[in-house]
């Protein structure tokens, strides 16, 4: 019996390819009885080609389809047309050909021979070769992984006949597939409800179910451009991008092929799976896949019935040997990784702005960096945490439990003072991150920040300087100067955690931005995954920098714009950089703008209202000590010589330094209101100002980078060494002396900063509040301050800038404010008025009057109040307990979550996962699951 072959060519607006395809079909040694072209093109060129095609032979026919239809529909239509007139289909086979393919002359003959030789073979497919390289196999047989993800058995491999022994496969691509007509009729062709990339797999599985074999015939060779897979066709062809089509295909196959219960559970769990996939994709540094994966999951979730229609009750047990093995999947992933790395390296070699170092750079450890870090930690001996928590100056302890710390973070109701429905400071996310390192005792990790601050800042500065200089001496000396600058030391001694953390973060921020933008003398970015890691790290550090020092907003925005310009070729990836910053800060910023109506409140430091003087430009930059000031002036003068060199970057860095000085002026021009949580224990002042340290550190980092570039460019090594040595002796050493001898306001002790009785009661779950009263001014004209302390206490994470600035906003209404003020007025006047009702209304169970000049009269007034029992003197002042505490109830319901907070946390976790460096092994494992084998269509 001789097999009668009819060919169906599916054409869609590819005139050049179509011409080749039709010519190739004409050249076949085994002639097809009929050749039908199903055309959906709108191109005139295609029409001309097809007219010539029809004229060439009576066996040729064309069906034009004006409506948009997918491949399965076109194939069904074509087959139906081409088989018209055949009474017996047993000896007929259909050869489906894509217009972007060109079968070699013996391809059909080889395929037909296979079908003739083996009646059990229902479908035969040729080896698919690259159009421009006939030695490259682009595909040879399809299968699925154990989780029904489509898998191309051979993908972009050089043809060394290593796969010529291959025969039976689970499925084959529809291109150049030869299928028995009766099998086609039995199966009904491709599934119309399956997405395009699942149709051929699904057909293959059904063919097996029908008792036929599906084979690959390596001796049959077809060149295939795979236009759909390479996104070179109209997106309607696949219903979106190739990746999206593949994700849809995976979901379809899972729902249609999994056992019913599993399929149903899979469908139910799709939202949860989506969430996991997002985090996983972040972790494996493929955030670009999140969009289409989510879309595919949504598509599957809402078209469940259509997926279920393709269920045919097939048992896959007999087919399991045709599924992709673990080894195949693993080797494919490794191959994909290597190809990606090769591409990245080639790209970096070709067009990167990065300049490969001319000489080998010493690693940080090899350059003695660890010893210097140790020395710097020793220099900060005053901050060695001899107690669990730091206090004094700006410093306050964190909440004792991680849950409390978490509750005080993000955009949920703030249980501080009078209470406020406003987002917490974005800085709380930084506190949460640090506290989470020792989640069992958040204060533990936090208490080490000050002692390690200089060491970490040095490390960061060293890494940053390594981007502009390969000379170890320059890097070490300038990094040392950065770590010991007067502005930094001042923030450290004042316990100004936001400024200290900002100063540590800044060099790392610039370093990671440089890496992400591939700026600098060397780049270690070797893969897409690494590039994503740096982008994510930049994003997180940018958010940290803004959270710590909102006053540097202008500088941060300028910095991002500069890097965006430098990395304009990779601007797409850098667009994600502001996402964590926006997610963490937007609710707070919106509240300051809309709620408090304080546009400048956005720039307020996230600290207690500790009385700090207005920053003066000169002192902020070079400190107060006259000798050290002159040393630093000398250093700045030295850096200015770089402007006379040929290094273009120096001028840019100087402009940035000047911008930092301008920002410093702006910082000194914004007066913030005093008050807020914990202010009752602070010296009363009219106004407080942002710390000058962040802007000063910005200035310093720009100057030091400019200096490093210039020093590095000096060719005369002797002169260069003299300058570096002079910088060390005249600047670094005096700074070290200053660092070691500066007196600190910070002390370490236990984390309790309220009377033990109150703390003990709140630890037992009591929601009683404590009223703290303090007097200011002279007897007779004194004024009183009152602060309501809630059970959360006065902790760094309970400090709310939104709350502080809302106190100056008359528009904000606090129901208890008036009651509390009247209660305070009556208490201090000791007029004998009954206060029980007022105390109950505001939920006050304790009253504390700090020990300070002027408060003695208040203490004595409280002794006369019959509603109070004097507890006694505590280390924080005189304490009274309200007699009727058992009758006091409060509505202190703490919500750990809010929708906004969930979004913030998700973004944060996602970017942390994206930023986390992953080992090579992990990358492979990752790719096993989610790698995209380039299954051909």
């Amino acid at each position, binding site marked *: 019996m001789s097999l009668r072959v009819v060919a169906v060519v599916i054409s869609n607006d590819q005139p050049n390819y179509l011409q080749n395809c039709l010519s190739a079909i004409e050249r076949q040694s085994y002639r097809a009885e009929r050749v039908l072209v199903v055309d959906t093109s709108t191109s005139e060129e295609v029409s001309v080609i097809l007219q010539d095609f029809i004229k060439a032979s009576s066996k040729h026919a064309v069906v034009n389809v004006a409506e948009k239809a997918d491949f399965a529909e076109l194939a069904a239509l074509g087959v139906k047309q081409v088989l018209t007139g055949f009474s017996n289909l047993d000896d007929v086979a259909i050869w489906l050909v894509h217009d972007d393919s060109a079968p070699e002359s013996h391809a059909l003959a080889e395929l037909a021979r296979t079908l003739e030789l083996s009646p059990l073979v229902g479908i035969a497919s040729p080896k698919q070769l690259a159009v421009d390289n006939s030695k490259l196999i682009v595909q040879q047989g399809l299968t699925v992984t154990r989780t029904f993800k489509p898998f191309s058995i051979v993908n972009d491999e050089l043809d060394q006949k290593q796969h010529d022994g291959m025969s039976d496969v689970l499925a084959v691509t529809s291109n150049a597939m030869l299928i028995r007509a009766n099998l086609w009729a039995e199966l009904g062709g491709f599934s119309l409800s399956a997405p395009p990339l699942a149709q051929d797999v699904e057909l293959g599985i059904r063919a097996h179910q029908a008792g036929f074999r599906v084979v690959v015939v390596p001796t049959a060779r077809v060149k295939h451009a795979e236009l759909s897979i390479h996104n070179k066709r109209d997106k309607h062809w696949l219903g979106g991008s190739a990746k999206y089509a593949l994700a849809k295909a995976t979901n379809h196959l899972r729902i249609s092929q999994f056992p019913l219960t599993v399929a149903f559970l899979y469908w139910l769990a799709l939202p949860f799976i989506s969430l996991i996939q997002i985090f996983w994709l972040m972790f494996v540094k493929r955030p670009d896949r999140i969009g289409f994966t989510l879309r595919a999951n949504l598509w599957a979730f809402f078209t469940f019935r259509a997926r279920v229609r393709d269920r045919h009750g097939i048992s896959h047990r007999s087919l399991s040997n045709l599924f992709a093995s673990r080894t195949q999947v693993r080797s494919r992933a490794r191959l994909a990784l290597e190809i990606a790395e090769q591409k990245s390296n080639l790209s970096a070699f070709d067009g990167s702005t990065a300049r490969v170092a001319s000489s080998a750079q010493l690693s940080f450890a090899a350059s003695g960096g660890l010893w210097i870090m140790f020395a710097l930690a020793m220099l900060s001996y005053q901050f060695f945490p001899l107690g669990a928590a730091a206090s004094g100056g700006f410093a306050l302890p964190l909440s004792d439990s991680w849950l409390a710390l978490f509750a005080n973070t993000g955009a949920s109701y703030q249980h501080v003072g009078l209470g406020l429905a406003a987002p917490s400071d974005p800085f709380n996310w930084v506190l949460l991150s640090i506290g989470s390192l020792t989640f069992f005792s958040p204060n533990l990790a936090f208490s080490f920040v000050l002692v390690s601050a200089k060491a970490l800042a040095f490390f960061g500065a060293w890494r940053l300087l390594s981007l502009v200089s390969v000379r170890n001496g320059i890097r070490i000396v300038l990094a040392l100067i950065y770590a010991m600058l007067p502005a930094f030391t001042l923030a450290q001694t004042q316990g100004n955690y936001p400024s200290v953390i900002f100063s540590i973060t800044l060099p790392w921020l610039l370093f990671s931005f440089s890496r992400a933008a591939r700026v600098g003398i060397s780049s270690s970015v070797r893969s897409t995954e690494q590039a994503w890691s740096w982008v994510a790290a930049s994003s997180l550090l940018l958010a940290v920098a803004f959270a710590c020092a909102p006053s540097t907003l202008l500088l941060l925005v300028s910095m991002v714009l500069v890097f965006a310009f430098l990395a304009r070729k990779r601007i797409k990836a850098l667009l994600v950089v502001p996402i964590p910053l926006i997610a963490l800060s937007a609710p707070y910023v919106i509240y300051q703008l809309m709620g408090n109506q304080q546009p400048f409140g956005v720039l307020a430091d996230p600290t207690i209202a500790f009385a700090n003087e207005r920053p003066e430009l000169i002192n902020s930059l070079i400190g107060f000590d006259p000798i050290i000031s002159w040393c630093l002036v000398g250093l700045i003068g030295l850096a200015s010589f770089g402007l006379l060199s040929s290094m273009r970057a120096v*001028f840019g860095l100087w402009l940035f330094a000047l911008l930092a000085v301008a920002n410093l002026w702006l910082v000194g021009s914004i007066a913030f209101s005093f008050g807020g949580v914990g202010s009752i224990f602070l010296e009363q002042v009219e106004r407080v100002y942002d710390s000058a340290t962040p802007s000063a550190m910005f200035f310093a980092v720009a100057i030091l980078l400019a200096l490093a570039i210039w020093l590095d460019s000096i060719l005369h090594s002797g002169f260069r060494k003299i300058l570096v040595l002079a910088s060390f002796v005249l600047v670094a050493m005096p700074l070290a002396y200053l660092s070691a001898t500066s007196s600190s306001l910070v002390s370490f002790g236990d984390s309790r900063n309220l009377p033990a009785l109150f703390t003990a009661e709140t630890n037992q779950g009591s929601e009683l509040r404590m009223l703290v009263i303090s007097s200011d001014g002279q007897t007779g004209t004194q004024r009183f301050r009152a602060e309501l302390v809630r059970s959360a206490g006065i902790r760094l994470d309970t400090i709310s800038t939104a709350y502080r600035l809302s106190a100056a906003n008359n528009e904000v209404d606090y129901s208890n404010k008036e009651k509390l003020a009247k209660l305070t007025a009556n208490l201090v006047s000791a007029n004998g008025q009954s206060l029980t009702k007022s105390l109950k209304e505001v939920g006050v169970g304790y009253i504390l009057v700090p020990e300070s000049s002027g408060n003695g009269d208040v*203490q004595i007034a409280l002794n006369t109040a019959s509603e109070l029992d*004097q507890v006694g003197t505590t280390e924080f002042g005189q304490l009274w307990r309200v007699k009727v505490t058992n009758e006091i109830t409060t509505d202190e319901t703490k919500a750990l979550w809010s929708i906004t907070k969930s979004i913030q946390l998700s973004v944060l976790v996602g970017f942390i996962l994206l930023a986390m460096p992953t080992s090579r092994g992990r990358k492979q494992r990752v790719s096993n699951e989610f790698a995209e084998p380039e299954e051909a269509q």
Partner: protein
Amino acid sequence: MVMRILKFLSVALIATGLVLFAKSSDLFDTGSQNYASYQVSAKNLQLNCTGPAIVTGGSTGTSVTGFKRAGKTSVGISYSAAKNTYLSLFGRRSIPGYSIRQDIEAKISTPEALTVKDSTGKVAQGSELLTANQLQLVKHKRINGLMASPCLRPQSEFWLVGGSTKVGREALLVLNNPSLVDATVDLEIFTENGASHSAGLTGIAVPKGKTTVLPLSSFVLRAGSLAVHVVSHGGSITALIQQKAVRGIFANGADYIAPSEVLTKDSYFPSILVRGADDTHKLRAAGAKYSDIQNMLRVYVPGEVDAKLTMQILGTTTETFGTVLQITAPAGKVSDFEIKGLADGDYLGILNSNVEVRSSIRLVRASASGDKFADFAWLNAAQPFTTTRYVAVPRSGISKLSLVNSSNKQTTVTLKLGSATITRRISANSAEVIRATPGISIGIIPNGAAIHASLLVDVSGRISVIPILDDKNISGQVEVSVH
């Protein structure tokens, strides 16, 4: 190269411009913490008179615990008799308020309290409502001198700058607790050697309704210069130092040291009325026992920065010429500086300091002939005030009210003396001395500029100074800022 030089110059120019001209000021302000006023009723105003002079040594003069009162002391009271109020006069009788000012004199033999009871709780408190002082000319073999002090509102904290525990000098700290709550008192004592770290300075019990008398020599023996900080916990108290001098075997000179005012850089001392300067000089030359008969400035400098002081003693008339001292007082210590060369006349003192200090002046008056005596008075820096204050004038002796205008502009002061009203003009940085009518209180009404005032009382040549205070409890409009 030209471009590089231009870049260099442009950067240098911008940097210089920023540093020199970009001075920060409050261009943008996020508002300030709001204080809101609340009307509250006040606690009844109570003034506590410390009672007659205390004689140590018991009946034999050798007891270390026996404190006896010497006779009775006169209390001068000025009560406005505002409507809805009545004055409880030492718990013995009540004087109802019928809107006519009452000047009363009474005698007490123990510490006693005056209370104005206000049924509405809304009557404005202060010296206009009630003021009182006590005056006693003591002529006891163990204490001799004119002793005057204001009757004080019980409080929690006092600073007493004055006194000495040198040989022949006795300083008694008199702590009265008129409240219904026991008080515990902590002391800080500063001398010419700095802070004292003696045992027993804390936890001193002053039971409710009782008086505790402490010889300061038990804490700081033979200290020439004293400043005492008294802090009460529990109940409110009054505190005074009773200082006496024994010259040879005779007591000669005594006074109370009243609480000092707040820390200030600029202190004003009215009532430096110098009389018998020649006699003082003669006595001082006569022997060591009179060596301390010299007008003297005492300064306590808290903190860690030495005070650079300028003390100007200015005459109030064209006939009197003062003196100027340029001195430095060490931080953390109490320093005395003699004010020499003052002839008889009326003066005012102005003390300027670069840091905030507490100060007082010891004024001496002596007679080298007849009834040979040497008395002294401790004069605190006077409070500035711009609202009406009253002072009760003792019925005995000569009382002179000194008024100082500390402003740079001439001002006028209205004085209410019984039904009479007079206005006096006071030049800038100058003083006026007015002789007061005995037994008739004086109302001092400044007209704009802040006034400092005190009343010097002279009984038989002995002197004492009564500060013009304005005691009031927290009442009326109380300003509260809620955080």
